[in-house]
């Protein structure tokens, strides 16, 4: 928290924004549109939240806006320790003891200062602030006043504004902002600058220009697009890299930074800044090295071609890229594969021939009668679920959109259907090293050798605990994956992801000859989104069960669990890859939900489940699915 800035300024007049925009044009790179919106929002009395990744110029923008509008700014750094008292203020205990609760004994917090003096309150990292502290802000935002106990009502000067900043992608130590707060603020999203903008910023800050800046900025941007990187570097990365590379060049007497110098600088600047995707085997250093080498190779190639300076042009992909089989796709690659596989769309006439209820559910182009679908669900759950899946692939763009939204709801509901009242399999167990729970007198006495325990270490406490379990759902999408088969997969996915809420770490993998990880363990991807993914998966030719099981083992290995189980929804008739019975390592139990009644299929499924230490169950429709899952693994 900084000291309050001096004297509040009057409400800015009409000349405010234009002057401000002049300053923005000279002081800030890019962000002109956002600055305009911010300036207008402030002059028209709105509160604003700036959302964007770090290093995109939120603070710089705010500082310029605040200076130009002539208002003081009170800064508050948001973190988990920011209590309501630290924002509002508190009665000084010493003063209260001396002279009781009097206004003089109240130590004003930044919120009160900003409100009384009509200043800007700048709250950084809003999503790190505890909810009860944020709730204090609600009345200040909505009514322009707050009530402080024993101090009374404090009205805000008309000039008071709250500007909050947050990085919505930051997942550690952050909380979700409630709708009540969002509803009272305008939101301005700020993204990374374009390449030219980042170069300008880097040049301005480092005073360097040319090759080094170009390489550093390209490297920074490449970290954001790299398939194995979850959070890339902000523009601060390139700035640091330029500084360090220049310094190293001086130290090592290099005219033009060589690969080693560039690599040292790049590792120092980027390896700590980037965050890799879950489960990536490589280290940040390896990723940074790979990107730098790629950039240097492109640079060398461009120089060999005597191309004019500038970013190296993308080169030809080259021949010989045969489609590889047996791939495991995760994260962005899985998303891209889903987008690609979801291409084939169904015309209304096809839908009409395939589903008797189509005309009732979609009476015209772009129309989806939800009530009609609900009625159909009551009458014929499987038919309705199959229709919904096919609607989600309609050529009709509007119908497809509505069907996907509805499907996310319907399948989550179907997936919930089998949930029993009891949750999981909790037992009373000894809780070593935890100070809560009930005393187990017998065992305590036993441990203390019959007498009274002499230290806390000898106390044995017991409490409720569920075994930690991890579950991987394997969805077979080979062959004719249409209508009902998709519906069963979507229901199963919803059911399993819902179980994640009960403390079971769940992941979902769709497979044919490749495996797509739709939801890795520990992911927060909600059931509705996973259902949408399942709906996007299209039929493919061959079935590689062994690959699926190996993928499950690998995913489950990432979860912290005592028991690792896989549930396979498939006809269990592999057409590619090795013997599935030989690919069961790393999975404690493999259960099978058989989708086909053919003798071969039942036999293969039963054998697989038996060898995997699990059970086999045949499912014939969506209505049975959730119950079957509950029966097999007791999770839903």
């Amino acid at each position, binding site marked *: 928290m900084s000291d309050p800035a001096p004297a509040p300024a009057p409400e800015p007049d009409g000349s405010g924004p234009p002057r401000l925009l002049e300053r923005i044009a000279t002081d800030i790179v890019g962000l002109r549109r956002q600055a305009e919106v911010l300036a207008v929002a402030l002059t028209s009395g709105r509160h604003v939240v700036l959302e964007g990744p770090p290093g995109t110029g939120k603070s710089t923008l705010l500082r310029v806006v605040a200076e130009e509008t002539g208002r003081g700014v009170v800064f508050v750094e948001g973190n988990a320790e920011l209590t309501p008292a630290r924002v509002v203020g508190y009665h000084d205990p010493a003063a209260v003891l001396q002279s009781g609760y009097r206004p003089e004994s109240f130590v004003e917090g930044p919120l009160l200062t900003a409100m009384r003096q009509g200043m800007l309150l700048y709250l950084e990292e809003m999503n790190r602030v505890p909810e009860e502290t944020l709730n204090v802000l609600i009345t200040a935002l909505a009514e322009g006043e707050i009530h402080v106990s024993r101090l009374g009502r404090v009205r805000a000067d008309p000039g008071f504004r709250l500007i909050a900043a947050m990085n919505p992608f930051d997942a550690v130590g952050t909380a979700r902002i409630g709708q009540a707060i969002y509803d009272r603020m305008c939101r301005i999203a700020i993204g990374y600058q374009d390449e030219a903008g980042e170069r300008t910023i880097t040049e301005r800050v480092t005073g360097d220009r040319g090759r080094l800046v170009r390489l550093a900025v390209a490297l920074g941007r490449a970290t954001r697009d790299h398939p194995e990187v979850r959070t890339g570097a902000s523009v601060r990365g390139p700035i640091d890299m330029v500084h360090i590379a220049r310094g190293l060049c001086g130290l090592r007497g290099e005219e033009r930074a060589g690969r080693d110098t560039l690599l040292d600088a790049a590792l120092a600047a980027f390896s700590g800044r980037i965050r890799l995707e879950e489960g990536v085997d490589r280290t940040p250093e390896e990723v940074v090295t790979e990107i730098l080498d790629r950039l240097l190779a492109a640079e060398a190639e461009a120089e060999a071609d005597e191309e004019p300076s500038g970013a190296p042009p993308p080169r*030809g992909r080259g021949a010989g890229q045969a489609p590889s089989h047996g791939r495991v796709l995760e994260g962005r690659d899985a998303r891209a594969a889903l987008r690609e596989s979801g291409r084939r769309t169904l*015309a209304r006439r096809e839908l009409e021939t395939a589903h008797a209820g189509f005309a009732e559910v979609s009476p015209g182009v772009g129309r989806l009668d939800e009530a009609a679908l609900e009625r159909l669900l009551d009458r014929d759950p499987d038919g309705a679920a199959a229709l919904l899946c096919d609607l989600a692939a309609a050529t009709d763009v509007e119908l497809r959109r509505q069907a996907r939204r509805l499907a996310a709801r319907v399948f989550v509901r179907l997936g919930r259907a089998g949930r029993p009242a009891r949750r999981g399999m909790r037992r009373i167990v000894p809780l070593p090293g935890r100070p809560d729970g009930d005393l187990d007198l017998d065992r305590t006495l036993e441990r203390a050798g019959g007498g009274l325990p002499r230290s806390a270490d000898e106390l044995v406490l017991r409490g409720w605990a569920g075994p930690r379990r991890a579950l991987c759902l394997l969805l077979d999408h080979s062959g004719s994956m249409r209508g009902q088969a998709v519906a069963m997969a979507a229901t199963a996915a919803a059911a399993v992801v819902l179980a994640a809420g009960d403390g079971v770490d769940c992941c979902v993998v769709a497979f044919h000859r490749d495996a797509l990880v739709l939801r890795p363990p520990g992911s927060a991807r909600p059931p509705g989104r996973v259902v949408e993914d399942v709906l996007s998966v299209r039929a493919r030719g061959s079935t590689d069960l062994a690959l699926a099981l190996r993928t499950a083992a690998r995913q489950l290995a990432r979860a912290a669990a005592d028991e690792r189980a896989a549930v396979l929804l498939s006809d269990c008739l592999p057409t590619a890859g090795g013997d599935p019975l030989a690919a069961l390592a790393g999975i404690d139990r493999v259960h099978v939900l058989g989708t086909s009644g053919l003798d071969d299929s039942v036999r293969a499924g039963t054998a697989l489940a038996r060898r995997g230490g699990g059970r086999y169950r045949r499912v014939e429709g969506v209505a049975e699915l959730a119950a079957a899952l509950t029966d097999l693994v007791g999770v839903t």
Partner: protein
Amino acid sequence: MKTKAAVCWETGPDARWELEELELDPPGEHELRIRWVASGLCHSDEHLTTGDLPARLPMVGGHEGAGIVEEVGASVTKVRPGDHVVCSFLPVCGTCRWCSTGQSNLCDLGATLLQGSLPGGEFRFHARGQDLGGMCMLGTFSERSVVSEYSVVKVDDDLPLDRAVLVGCGVPTGWGSSVYAARVGPGDTVVIYGIGGVGINAVQGARHAGAANIVAVDPLPNKREKAEELGATHSVATGEEAQELVTRLTNGVLADRSIVTVGVVDAVVVEQAFNVIRKGGSVTIVGLGPIAEKTIQLSGTMLTLFQKTVQGSMFGSSNPMYDIRKMLELYRVGQVKLDELCSATYSLDDINQGYQDLRDGKNIRGVIVYDS
């Protein structure tokens, strides 16, 4: 009734589309009125303003359109009000010598494409006391047009018209130039010069036809990238690079087919396309250039000795009534990409910006989407 339209009043290097409110006549006996939903920004309309294509002026631009039929003339039986249609920039009468022999892309009704009048010679747009033609008898840069029933193709009403619009010209022209005109076959090596609204679809066509090597030639990196995304196996910036690459790829045999779809065809690119093909290969020219200029200057002896073919192709030698629907069917099954082609949408008011972006090479295909 009144309609707002973008009109070309005069040609010249600085000529711009002027937005103007026009008077629109009701449809005649074999005509219908369309409310356009979307219109593609094709390079051919740019040729109109520059004067490369000598058309009767003033003219309402636009010949790539998809919309909804609002009113039909007394004798129209092909469509009804409410039907969704994609227009063919080539009318198809179905009875002339060309239509009846399977070359409806050469239908005699095409005679007045650049005059812009309907087949009977009438003009349905009027302003400033003058009759205005519609580009290719359509004039899709207008909120509404009256067009001949020979120009419309009814399509399923669940297709998104702002995507389907692209199959009115660029997609079948490009796709057909590979599949029909150049007769690309499995294992062929094809070189495509110019990756615009037509060239990118020539790439898609060549991929469908099973070409082993598809080399896209374009100076702009974004276009080369798009070409590779949609099926090109290689992309290069210049004709010289293409020559070198193809020589290497084919062990000196050279390419089987080359297709010229550049924005303004000149003698240089035609010669490059001629030099890049093998003995017995063919050059297919789809792009346009200044009409009076001689844009083919080749050694006739080489033509003879290597038995090469140089040919033109109108509408990719496609059959509008059949191929427009076929492209949409291929789109539906995910084999022809339309969503990826449309790189930007504009309102009619921003049409000049759209053409500026086209000149700057920013767009694969810009599309006007009407809000009316």
